[in-house]
């Protein structure tokens, strides 16, 4: 009954609407803990799908499910304290939407049927929209509107893409159930032309959601306006789910022998996203937007790695894990800073090292991590992607990749340095609290731990996710 993983948060989420906020907070925490337990059980193979034609436990899905679940536990702890200290008009709705968000995301990771996957991803948009405008400021409303409209339009295109895939099935006279698992077995018989068209629409559709440039336009707005726990969830978990949609389709393409085509498209999107990230990170006046653009850049890295394939594919999967951990940690730290200083303007914040020393540690460590420096795992994932790209002799691509990394590094460093060390103009308003620090520490620690020691089960599950399209851990 693997479906229970997403039914549970959906159910508790709806329950939370009826509960007072204090109880709701506890429910949130309980659900998160229960959810991670279920996830662990599913990793151990204890849960089997009841509706195998819609849901299945694919390795890549389980991986992202675990990441999502872990991040959600940390974020729910953070929210516990966060909700106390912010004036939120409608806390039950917030809790409800957080839980529904978790539910829909879990559904994404488990779904095997393309249209079900589509439904789940569209659902994540809808349930996360209230999270963004929970504060009901004008900017938040604008961000939500852009988020909902652009994502809906984009995802609608993904549906069109899947229709083309079905057309490809029809033209190939295939009579198999329409699940990714079964499609992969008959992929070679699919009509290549319409499969390509389908892939283009899917990649644009889910790419919109994943934040690939130039469809990324909603992302910085939404991430900067959402309350920090929601931003952390959006960046750390939601983007991965959209990626999952693309990845599964890419796998289908590769099995159908069109891996070069889809890979090149992904590389292109990856590079454009990285460059767009670089353009906006340099001189970015708003640190939450900066983090958002950094997510775009990292999604670009992931797309790039997947597009390159082989060794880089392994790197891309590592990158997903570490980006989620580090970025959500950073958003949580940024939340502390936002609470502390009451502004998102980089210019007006300074000397975090003095005013919020403990947040400084997590914030700056996050920066070190996101810049791809050891001991954080992103170092190793970026190195692997670079090596993988060289291995495939994609020299021009990798040159652009390195250029973008450099630009982003330069831009991001300037902002973090001035915020952490520079002179402050605004007075500190709210002190840091242990409950709001532990989660970001835990996330950072997870990234370090995975860089020092990779558990066998994680290693095998990544290998299982990538081996079907020739991802390896060797040259």
């Amino acid at each position, binding site marked *: 009954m693997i479906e229970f993983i997403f039914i549970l948060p959906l159910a508790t989420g709806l329950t939370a609407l009826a509960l007072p906020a204090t109880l709701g907070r506890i429910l949130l925490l309980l659900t998160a803990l229960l959810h991670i337990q279920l996830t662990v059980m599913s990793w151990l193979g204890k849960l089997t799908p009841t509706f195998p034609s819609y849901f299945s436990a694919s390795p890549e899905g389980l991986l992202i499910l675990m990441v999502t679940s872990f991040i959600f536990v940390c974020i729910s702890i953070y929210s516990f304290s966060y909700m106390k200290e912010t004036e939120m008009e409608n806390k039950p709705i917030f809790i409800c939407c957080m839980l529904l968000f978790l539910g829909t995301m879990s559904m994404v990771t488990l779904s095997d049927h393309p*249209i079900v996957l589509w439904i789940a991803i569209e659902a994540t948009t809808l349930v996360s929209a*209230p999270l963004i*405008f929970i504060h009901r400021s004008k900017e938040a409303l604008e961000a939500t509107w852009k988020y909902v*409209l652009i994502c809906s339009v984009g995802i609608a295109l993904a549906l069109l893409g899947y229709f083309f895939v*079905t057309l490809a099935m029809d033209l190939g006279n295939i009579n198999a159930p329409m699940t990714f698992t079964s499609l992969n077995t008959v992929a070679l018989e699919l009509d290549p032309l319409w499969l390509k068209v389908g892939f283009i629409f899917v990649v644009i559709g889910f790419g919109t959601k994943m934040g690939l440039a130039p469809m990324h336009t909603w992302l910085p707005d939404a991430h900067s306006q959402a309350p920090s726990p929601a931003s952390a969830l959006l960046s750390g978990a939601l983007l991965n789910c959209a990626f999952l949609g693309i990845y599964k389709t890419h796998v289908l393409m590769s099995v159908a022998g069109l891996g070069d085509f889809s890979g090149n498209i992904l590389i292109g999107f990856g590079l454009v996203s990285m460059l767009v990230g670089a353009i906006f990170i340099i001189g970015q006046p708003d640190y939450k937007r900066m983090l958002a653009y950094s997510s775009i850049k990292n999604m670009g890295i992931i797309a790039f790695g997947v597009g390159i394939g082989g060794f880089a594919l392994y790197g891309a999967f590592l990158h997903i894990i570490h980006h989620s951990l580090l970025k959500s940690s950073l958003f949580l730290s940024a939340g502390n800073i936002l609470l502390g200083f009451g502004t998102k303007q980089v210019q007006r914040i300074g000397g975090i090292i003095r005013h919020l020393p403990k947040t400084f540690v997590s914030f700056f460590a996050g920066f070190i991590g996101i810049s791809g420096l050891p001991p954080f795992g992103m170092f190793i994932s970026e190195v692997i992607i670079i090596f993988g790209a060289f291995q495939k002799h994609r020299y021009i691509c990798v040159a652009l990749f390195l250029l973008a990394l450099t630009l982003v590094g330069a831009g991001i460093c300037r902002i973090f340095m001035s915020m952490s060390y520079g002179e402050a103009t605004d007075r500190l308003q709210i002190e840091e609290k242990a409950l709001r620090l532990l989660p970001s520490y835990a996330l950072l620690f997870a990234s370090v731990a995975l860089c020092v020691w990779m558990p066998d089960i994680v290693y095998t599950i990544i290998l299982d996710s990538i081996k079907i399209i020739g991802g390896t851990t060797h040259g």
Partner: protein
Amino acid sequence: MINVTESILVITLLSVLLSLGSTRLIALVKIMALQGIMVSLTPLFLRGDDSLGSGAIIFFQIMILIKGLLIPSLLYMAVKKIAIKREIEPIIGYHASILVGLVILIISVFITSHLRLSLPAGHDMVLITAITTMAAGFFLMMARSKAITQVIGYLMLENGIYLIGTALTKHSHTLYVVEFGVLLDLLVGVMIMGIILHNINSAFDDADTTLLRRLKD
């Protein structure tokens, strides 16, 4: 039977052109209701009687209900509550819009004839309608400044995509549960959009996208 299908499609096309040219929000909502019903009916007539099971009949009824009634009424409520000025306020003018619609139509025909798909008879027309509807949906989203017209544009896009799905696939592997999920998403999506529109309206005193330009770099 083919005549019925074609006439349905012609009505759909007409509704597209009308929506491009209409000046009033209420009229636009009504056109959408019509289009929704027409789009929902298309597969019924396209397919013939033999493959219609009982599940399909229930599904199509629900679909007509949602697309033809529920969503338009939601939109109607939204217009009533939100829009103080009921004019559409185009970025690109009405006449030009209609011209664009015609161009879109020509391109659709062109594309369809160049695809050289071995489609069952009559599906060509569906494809033309679908592409036109989709493109017009995009056009509405881009060429109108009222937020609510963008919702309508989105709905048109959905309709177009649905038509493509209908036209291109044999439906042998479509599961109605799944289709229903899609439909539900659409409904909830429109509801959420409505809620946001309401909030935007109370925050900005108007639900116009020209006001939504604060977030930029």
